[in-house]
């Protein structure tokens, strides 16, 4: 089972985790990506996620197929929120159901890393007196709006 969704609605991790629970799965692993409150000493007010939805959905599907192939993970759910997300809210849920835990841990790490490399979803941090499209940690320091 592969379940992929990019949505403006808030994410319910319990509901998503339930989707990958089966009697044949001895391990259920859920990763939550949540929005942090501080960026380089500045207080973040909210985050804005933007997606190239058609391609993002396709790339998430590819990652899910890769998890099935490499780690034999039968049940996979990827939910990503877009639009405005307030600090402390959940922007990403990865839920995996697997017969064994080792495969689930390895696959989950790979999925989140890979997602950040190839899935076209961008994040803008909005704070008092500015905003920035988040790139890598290094690039962050030179692309602050108004601080070139």
């Amino acid at each position, binding site marked *: 089972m592969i379940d992929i969704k990019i949505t403006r609605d808030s994410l319910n991790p319990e509901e998503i985790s339930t989707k990958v629970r089966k009697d044949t799965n001895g391990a259920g692993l859920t990763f939550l990506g949540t929005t942090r409150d501080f960026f380089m000493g500045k207080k973040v007010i909210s985050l804005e996620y933007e997606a*190239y939805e058609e391609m993002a959905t396709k790339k998430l599907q590819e990652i899910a197929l890769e998890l099935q192939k490499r780690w034999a993970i039968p049940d996979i759910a990827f939910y990503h929120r877009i639009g405005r997300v307030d600090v402390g809210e959940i922007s990403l849920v990865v839920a995996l159901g697997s017969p064994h835990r080792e495969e689930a841990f390895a696959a989950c790490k790979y999925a989140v890393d890979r997602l*950040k490399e190839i899935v076209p979803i961008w994040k803008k941090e909005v704070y008092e007196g500015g905003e920035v499209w988040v*790139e*890598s940690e290094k690039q962050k320091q030179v692309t602050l709006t108004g601080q070139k």
Partner: protein
Amino acid sequence: MKVRVILFAIHREKLGQGQVELELPFGATVADLLDGMTNRFPEFVNLKDGLMVAVNTEYVDSQAVLNNDDEVALIPPVSGGNDDRYKDN
């Protein structure tokens, strides 16, 4: 031929639009398209760091040949990725 260029995130904001139509000669490559973007939007030259390009929702390299009516997405770095392969084009 005509291709539709779609823009996201920092590109969309800096260039002030989400979509651009570019007229290119037949046989034009992604590299030619990026040159065309720079000609039309001089500030685009500063937006190429870490840029990736997708044609009809699949990543391609700068030598990929474009076809009429292609949808070309310019993909600024996502939060973890950092690929400079188009920087010098």
